[in-house]
């Protein structure tokens, strides 16, 4: 099962994914378009409470127009939740000077038969990609739009 959620307005959002059924698999994809001034605060809690569950959470954000993006995620694996696989990915692109981003992926792991991890990154638009697209006859603005969409939809 995969859930997709969009965050287009400033605000505080909490997402909680709980795994209570043995053998359950649940994925979550968050897309954050932070294009106006304001705080975009997205907090994700992933809780594995029973054996043998699998989860993958991906959040991608672009920050522009003075947006402040805060992505924080926590994977908790309780002592009973052996054989868990869990991964959390938080990525942000900062598109202008006024915008900021922070990415805080956290882990609290109390079981040992697990594979758990996270990846986070903050970066900027890759100008080589923009140039490549322009060399193919796409305007600068269109190229940037395409790259942003590609980034937000990639998972």
């Amino acid at each position, binding site marked *: 099962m995969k859930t997709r959620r969009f965050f287009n307005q400033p605000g505080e959002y909490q997402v909680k994914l709980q795994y209570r059924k043995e053998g359950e698999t649940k994925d979550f994809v968050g897309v954050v378009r932070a294009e106006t001034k304001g705080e975009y605060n997205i907090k994700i809690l992933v809780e594995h409470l029973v054996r043998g569950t699998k989860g993958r959470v991906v959040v991608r954000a672009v920050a522009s127009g003075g947006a402040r993006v805060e992505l924080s995620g926590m994977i908790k694996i309780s002592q009973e939740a052996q054989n868990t696989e869990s991964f959390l990915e938080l990525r942000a692109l900062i598109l202008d000077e006024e915008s*900021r981003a922070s990415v805080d992926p956290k882990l609290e792991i109390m079981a040992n038969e697990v594979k758990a991890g996270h990846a986070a990154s903050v970066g*900027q638009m890759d100008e080589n990609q923009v140039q490549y697209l322009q060399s193919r006859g796409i305007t600068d603005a269109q190229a940037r739009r395409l790259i942003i969409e590609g980034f937000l939809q990639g998972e």
Partner: protein
Amino acid sequence: MKKNKENQEDYELGFKTETESYSYKAKKGLSEKLVREISARKKEPRWMLEMRLKALAQFAKMPVPKWGANLENIKWDEIHYYLRTVERPYKSWEEVPDGVRNVFEKIGVPEAEKELLAGVTGQYDSEKIYGSLKKSLAKKGVVFLSMDEGLQKYPELVRKYFGTIVPMGDNKLAALNMAVWSGGSFVYVPKGVEVGLPLQAYFRINAEKAGQFERTLIVVEEGAEVHYVEGCSAPAYSSASLHAAVVEVVVKPRAKCRYTTVQNWYKNVYNLVTKRARVEQQARMEWVDCNLGSKVTMKYPSCLLIGERAHGEMLSIAVAGSGQQIDAGAKMMHLAPLTTSRITSKSISKDGGRASYRGMVTISPRARGARSRVVCDALILDAKSRSDTYPTNRIMNKEVILEHEAYVSKIGEEQLNYLRSRGLTQGQAETMIVRGFLEPVVGELPMEYSVELNRLVKMEMEGSVG
């Protein structure tokens, strides 16, 4: 479990030696009178006493930090804040009393010195009692003294930097350290001098409930290079000791400093340490930090990257066994353009231990073109243990590349099966995998320390597996 206990008993450094012959042992607890007494005994300049008193007031005002490990069980009034074994440091090994010498012989200082070591300063409780520095270094103007001697001989130099990197108000433990500090090292490397061999200091806590509040200051002038190494071991005692050190490092333009720690305090020590470096233009600071011992460790060595193209690096190992909580990490503050940093953290939790990585990377608006990479790997060896990762990454400009990765798992079945199919026992295979896991950091240690660390890891591992 039984095997583990035996292991503890023949634990090489877990001996207790008779050294109740302290020439001065302050009463338990902290007071203004004590601070004045420490300062007077050390014949310190007036400004240092004033600083100590200010810090004492600061300490009283500040709350015990609550955001990390549990520090509620520290009995602040039960601690000896100052001890002194001898009136003055000895010049030669023969002068050192037998009781003191035995401890050093057990941890191998004289042997280490015979090897390719540039100088040895053993900290036996709160003062340096034995130190030497190779003549060639002294000729180049390299200073390697205990902090107390440094203050006596180079008061102006010390005054210029002391408390500028870690001010007294930084945190409660830093305030405490400034109020009652004693011992530690003072290292000064003049412009352009490369100290080829690592400078080493051994630290030991040897009185029950003794607090160790050493203060280290390292100044590396333009284009100079130094590697400072500290190894810490404390003998076995029943009640908890407190170790609250402060380390300040100044790395001037194009200079390079590496600070290596192998911490193996006995498992009743609270190890609460503040370490920070100011890294100037094109300079490079490297922390190599290995934490195996202590009951509770909270330590987050930091780099203030204030000059263009400054680089900060952190390589760390944490091994948390039964009853231990190791809460360690790093902080990288990018405050200038094109600064770079890298954090590599390896942790192992076993026998109910808890290892946490807690780190922070801040990239300020000025730090255009900054890059930072953080990698945390953790192994959990059994179902009772716990591993946490608490990173914070704040990015305040757009020309930045920040990457963070963490991975937690147990030892891979496939790897184990493969090694066992080659004739290794389960225990041998696990030890081998763990050593391979730690190798990227262990490989960076000076030879005798990597040997020691491998031995310690093997000892720890064979208590728990195999």
